[in-house]
């Protein structure tokens, strides 16, 4: 096997400081090429749009941008966005905790199927999320006219916007808590109960402290999506100025009116929200050592 072509390397023997390549690493050239490709790609796809939002918003100076943000319709949109998040996030939080408790702390048949059902809204187009509520409550449905006769307007009103938002943000918190609570097992709860705690005491004093960071993480992601949702909300909103316009819809309206600075000014608020979310997310990941998950 000894190949003579390499025999001349024997002369290096006296100086074992010959550059040694770790057999599990790429050459520096390959390494920096790959890093450059990655950075160039991310710059083009991720960073540039982010910069564009702020740069377009400030195109005519910060006063103009500020004026478009404090304008009445924009303020109304912000209020609605907050209201929607304040309703949708806690509801999904309660659901997430209940679902995780029943799935992670008990063994029953059909569990995997239930988890798949909970994941369903991630796989469905947001437009379909809006569509299903239109079919449920719209003209030609059974429910819509009945509710209307009671004076309850769902579609093209705030309740529809809330429902559509709940649909698309439905799995976030449950998805975060289920694997976390499954990993933690049932030992702590069983210990608490054997020491005489009741169910609520066990949850508040034992389970909740164990899951608080994961819970916060899920709330963070759920909130970001709730405030930023566009497709589902746009279908059910009806776009009544000052009434059913959320911030993302306000961006669209301003954009379609060629009021670009105002559109980007409102958009930059949403982008700031995204940045804050990312920073908090990174901090939380550091705090509780969470792995990255793909299914957001």
């Amino acid at each position: 096997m000894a190949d003579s072509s390499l025999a001349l390397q024997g002369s290096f023997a006296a100086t074992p400081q010959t550059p040694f390549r770790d057999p599990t690493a790429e050459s520096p050239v390959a390494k920096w090429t790959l890093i450059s490709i990655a950075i160039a790609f991310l710059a083009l796809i991720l960073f540039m749009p982010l910069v564009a939002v702020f740069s377009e918003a400030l195109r005519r100076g910060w006063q103009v941008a500020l004026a478009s943000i404090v304008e009445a319709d924009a303020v109304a949109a912000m209020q609605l966005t907050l209201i929607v998040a304040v309703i949708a996030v806690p509801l999904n939080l309660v659901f997430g905790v209940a679902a995780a408790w029943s799935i992670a702390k008990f063994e029953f048949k059909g569990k995997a199927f239930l988890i798949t059902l909970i994941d369903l809204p991630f796989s469905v187009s947001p437009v379909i999320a809006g569509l299903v509520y239109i079919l449920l409550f719209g003209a030609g449905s059974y429910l819509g006219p009945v509710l209307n006769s009671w004076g309850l307007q769902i579609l093209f009103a705030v309740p529809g916007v809330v429902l559509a938002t709940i649909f698309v943000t439905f799995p976030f918190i449950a998805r975060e808590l289920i694997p976390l609570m499954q990993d933690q097992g049932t030992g702590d709860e069983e210990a608490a109960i054997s020491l005489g705690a009741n169910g609520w005491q066990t949850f508040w004093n034992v389970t909740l402290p164990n899951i608080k960071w994961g819970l916060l993480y899920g709330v963070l992601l759920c909130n970001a999506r709730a405030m930023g949702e566009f497709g589902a909300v746009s279908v059910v909103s009806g776009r009544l100025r000052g009434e059913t316009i959320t911030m993302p819809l306000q961006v669209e309206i301003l954009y379609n009116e060629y009021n670009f600075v105002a559109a980007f000014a409102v958009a930059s608020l949403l982008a700031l929200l995204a940045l804050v979310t990312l920073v908090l997310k990174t901090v939380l990941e550091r705090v509780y050592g969470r792995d990255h998950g793909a299914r957001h």
Partner: protein
Amino acid sequence: MSAILAVPASRRQWKQPSVIPGFGLTFGFTIFYLSLLILIPLAGLGWRSAALGWSEFWRLASDPRLIAALKTSFWTSFFAASVNVVFGVIVAWVLVRYRFPGRRLIDAAVDLPFALPTAVAGIALTAIYAPNGWIGQFFQPYGIRIAYTPIGIVIALIFIGLPFVVRTVQPVMEEISREVEEAAASLGANRFQTLWRVILPGLAPAILTGFSLAFGRAVGEYGSVLFIAGNIPFVSEIAPLLIAIRLEEFNYPAATAIGAIMLILAFVVLLTINLIQAWSRRRYGYGG
């Protein structure tokens, strides 16, 4: 105590007994909330499309504009997910294997498409790739338009799909054992052969899963595409947009038919992901 002991251990139960309380309450609420908000509305879509009748459904589904929109959706999503696989794997590798200034920032930034509202991404990408935009201006002299064409759709779909590939592949990459790479080297494989024949095939299940997730998300995407696509029927109109258009026309039967088709597509993607993972786990002993 005696009551617990009296339960025959051999009986196959739907739920295993537990000392932890609250199953009835939490499970009941879970099913109630899930049914009320997700399952019943989705079932409503299925029921309404079934109520159309087969011939009516077929007539609506074979609308040439719809078929064109579905094709556009499919191909742009497929292409975007493919681009994401190539660059997503590179980005994940760079983040997992190399230490360089700014790595943490980049790692955090990969999640930007998860956090940034799609409408914001849509108008920002449009601004950049429009004929007078930062990047669009360089293509304009050559007669290449990016915004308001299917290329623009692909760009938007690359943006929203990227984290799915990176975040699926990244944890699997982190678990590649050094021993396996050393084994390949000791058997004479050079670094490229090790990467190409050992590491990449080992990542295949994760890459396929990431591709499917990105593809599934892209097919349903609406907000970011709306602005950059130009929305020209038969050219740059995607299926979700067509649903929205039909709804605005109060043409609910047509919207229902498209919705049903898209829902089926979503289920197929979901099923594909589950099959990839089950297959990979059975054969290789690890999931994607």
